[in-house]
């Protein structure tokens, strides 16, 4: 990975370049302010040391009042400028482009488990193609962890009981540290791995060569039947239950008047806490599956329900 002593981490993602620009800008500004303060201290301490011949005497009124207001205003302006710059970068980088390669990440004490869309799985490792947007959908099985790839300037906490997401677009092939950045117990420091960035063709070859398993959505389809979901939600069912075709990403009207967008969290909650956000026009008769599913099964169901978008949308 790194040889010798380096002062700058590799910048291997699009975001990293923007972050580094802000960091360098801040270094310059901070350096200038520090230098200013240091120079003033040095000059004043020398010139006005006790007994020196420099003139003392009153401070002119403009120094007392205007200088004070002046540097307050300057500090405020500088602070707001840096805020605006940093906030713009963050807002711009906020959402992943549609069609990003979606990787599911499962964190547990003390390892990372990643799954590619075609079912390939890795432990403490992640292979990704260069130049493509990669979206990470992550959850934890126990405590809070944090997915940290310094070379990408990427970090996102991974929580139990919900999904958190982040995304990146890698720009440099190579192998980079993957670290856990939220203290998670005994082997927190050993919960490490490697993110490998490959050229797109290499990645495709690599993914195809992984041990084949049913992809997540197919497994989810099997679960959908075996758990009885299709008993109510299939088109032929006599039970009045909302159809799930094309549901992912759609705006849903709830019985209490609110509208929500059906994202991963909503679908997940509908499975575990069905009485919470009931769709308008339907009775709250869906049973809860809390305690009946583990995280892996939930992720498969999610993948299946999301895939219904492509297949059945009119």
């Amino acid at each position, binding site marked *: 990975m*790194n040889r010798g*002593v*380096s*002062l700058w981490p590799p910048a291997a993602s699009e*975001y990293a370049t*923007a*972050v580094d620009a*802000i*960091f360098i800008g*801040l270094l310059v500004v*901070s350096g200038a302010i*520090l230098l200013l*303060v240091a120079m*003033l*201290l040095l000059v*004043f*301490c020398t010139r*006005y*040391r*006790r*007994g020196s011949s420099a*003139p*003392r005497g*009153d401070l002119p009124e403009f120094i007392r009042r205007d200088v*004070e207001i002046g*540097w*307050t205003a300057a*500090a405020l302006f500088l*602070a707001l400028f*840096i*805020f605006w*710059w*940093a*906030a713009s970068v*963050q*807002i711009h980088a*906020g959402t992943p482009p549609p069609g990003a390669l979606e990787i599911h990440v499962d964190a547990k*004490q003390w390892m990372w488990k990643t799954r590619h869309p075609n079912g390939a799985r890795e432990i403490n490792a992640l292979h990704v193609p260069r130049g493509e947007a990669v979206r990470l959908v992550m959850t934890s099985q*126990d*405590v*809070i962890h*944090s997915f940290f790839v310094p070379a990408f*300037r990427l*970090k*996102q*906490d991974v*929580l*139990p*009981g*919900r999904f958190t997401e982040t995304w990146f677009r890698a720009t440099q092939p190579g192998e980079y*540290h993957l*670290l856990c*950045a939220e*203290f998670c*117990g*005994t082997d*927190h*420091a*050993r919960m*490490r791995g490697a993110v490998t960035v490959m050229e797109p063709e290499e990645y495709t070859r690599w993914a195809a060569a992984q041990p084949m398993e049913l992809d997540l959505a197919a497994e989810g389809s099997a679960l959908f039947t075996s758990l009885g979901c299709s008993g109510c939600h299939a088109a032929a069912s006599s039970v009045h239950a909302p159809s799930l075709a094309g549901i992912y990403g759609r705006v849903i009207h709830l019985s209490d008047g609110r509208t929500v967008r059906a994202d991963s969290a909503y679908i997940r909650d509908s499975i575990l806490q069905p009485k919470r956000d009931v769709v308008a026009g339907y009775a709250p008769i869906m049973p809860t599956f809390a305690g009946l599913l583990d995280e892996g099964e939930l992720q498969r169901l999610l993948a299946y329900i999301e895939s219904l978008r492509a297949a059945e949308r009119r």
Partner: protein
Amino acid sequence: MSGITAERAAPEAPPTREDTYLTAETGLASWLLSTDHKRIALLYMAGLTLFFFVGAAGAAAVRLELFTPEANILTADAYNRAFTLHGTIMVWFFLVPSIPVTLGNFLVPLMIGARDLAFPRLNLISWYVFMAAGALAIWSLVAGGVDTGWTFYTPLSTAFANGHVLTAAAAVFVAGFSTIATAVNFIATVHLLRAPGLTWFRLPLFVWAIYATSLVMVLATPVLSMVLLLVFAERAFGIPIFDPARGGDPLLFQHLFWFYSHPAVYIMILPAFGVMSEIITCFARRQIFGYTFMVYAIVWIAVVGFLVWGHHMFVSGQSTFANLAFSFLSFVVAVPSAIKVFNWTATLYRGQIVFDAPMIYALGFIGLFTIGGLTGLFLASIPVDVHVTDTYFVVAHFHYIMVGGAVSAFYGGLSFWWPKITGRLYPEGWARFAAVTMFFGFGFTFFPMFIMGFLGMPRRYQVYPPEFQVWHVLSSAGAVILAVAYLLPMGYLAWSLFRGRRADPNPWGATGLEWQTSSPPPKENFRTLPVVEEGPYLYHPEHAGPPALEREPHRPQGSQQ
């Protein structure tokens, strides 16, 4: 320079000396049952010194282990308990109380011309509660330790950690009572016991700082108490609060915890600001530049400090809107600190600067605090924070402020008021050497951490990728120098108690009311209560500069009637 020392020493012991608060009563009971704020300050000093060593032991274990990338000395669990010990003890049993309960307790009544705090018996009870809490904390250590980090994040602390979380949480909870009681005491004292003529805008900035700190203590600490209670209930009784499997939200813990813990860092630094203003004015022989702005800066920090807690949670899964709001407010709260740094610097302009030990500590403070504060701008910028949060960059940032700032100020304040507290002078040469050593030792220890944090070295890691070793070695070596700088003053200050020359009432020629009484003060502080006619820091006449040789201030703040 030695001429000045000779000026400050009292003539050899007069035939009969009046009783001071140290000699008024003797015997252990007279100390342990004393309601005299000055004696209680010394009781706290003893306790804090003990806890400082305990917390430092944790740091020593950590820095020793980190000399090499592999685990050599400690098991993984032992290491995790070591850094948890370090953080928990240093935050709650050293930094939060430090300046307020020692210097604040001793000086606030003297500075406002009162005979004691508003509630002297409550003051004594505060000390006992504090020591009991500390005993509980040490018990949790002896019994095997806690391994959650000082931040106690759920669900690790409630459901997965194996250490003595309950005992540690209880210790911090109990310590909170002591904090709140002390704060109530200070607030009432400043409101109700000021000497005649001492209006709010004539108060020394140290009193303003203690007052603002106390307001923050009173409003923030109870939220910590509640969140610790919730963690205790969940861990001890299985009651679900933060458990996601039963509908709980681990992020609620973080919000409640940081709602206290961010104002807590202002509790730790505001008193240091107060000490700075007292020292710099005295050793530059000038009025503070921009007194009114300095007061409003303290108030601005105290108020806005309650609104920025979410900047500890930028990658926690919080919404982008919340992130932006907290980022904005964090930038806003940086401005008053900048004002203070500029004003201290400007106070030196056209002064008659003397470089005694307190002044060297103060100059070191300005440098280290400026660096620490500027790196706060980095952390307030969300994209940068995403990269460096939970790395050594943050560790460096807060140590620059807490240690480079607050601890330097504490040592500086001790050096400044030592003659007043003990009636003794310490050897100048050693003191200046210690102050300079502290500045350089600190830099060696903590500057490499900025670099390795940006390179990607995470916090709370016992083992690490080998490319970080060079920075860790630098840091651990610096820690040795820093340790020397901390121990030296303990040595020569203790020596001064027995062999130091006796001090006269005002060895530094300072203006505050505390310097208008003997060193050490009598038990009742003043023979007759002073009346105040002036504002603070009148080292020189209104439209002139300070004289070079004259050591008496132009006008002390008040005089005993």
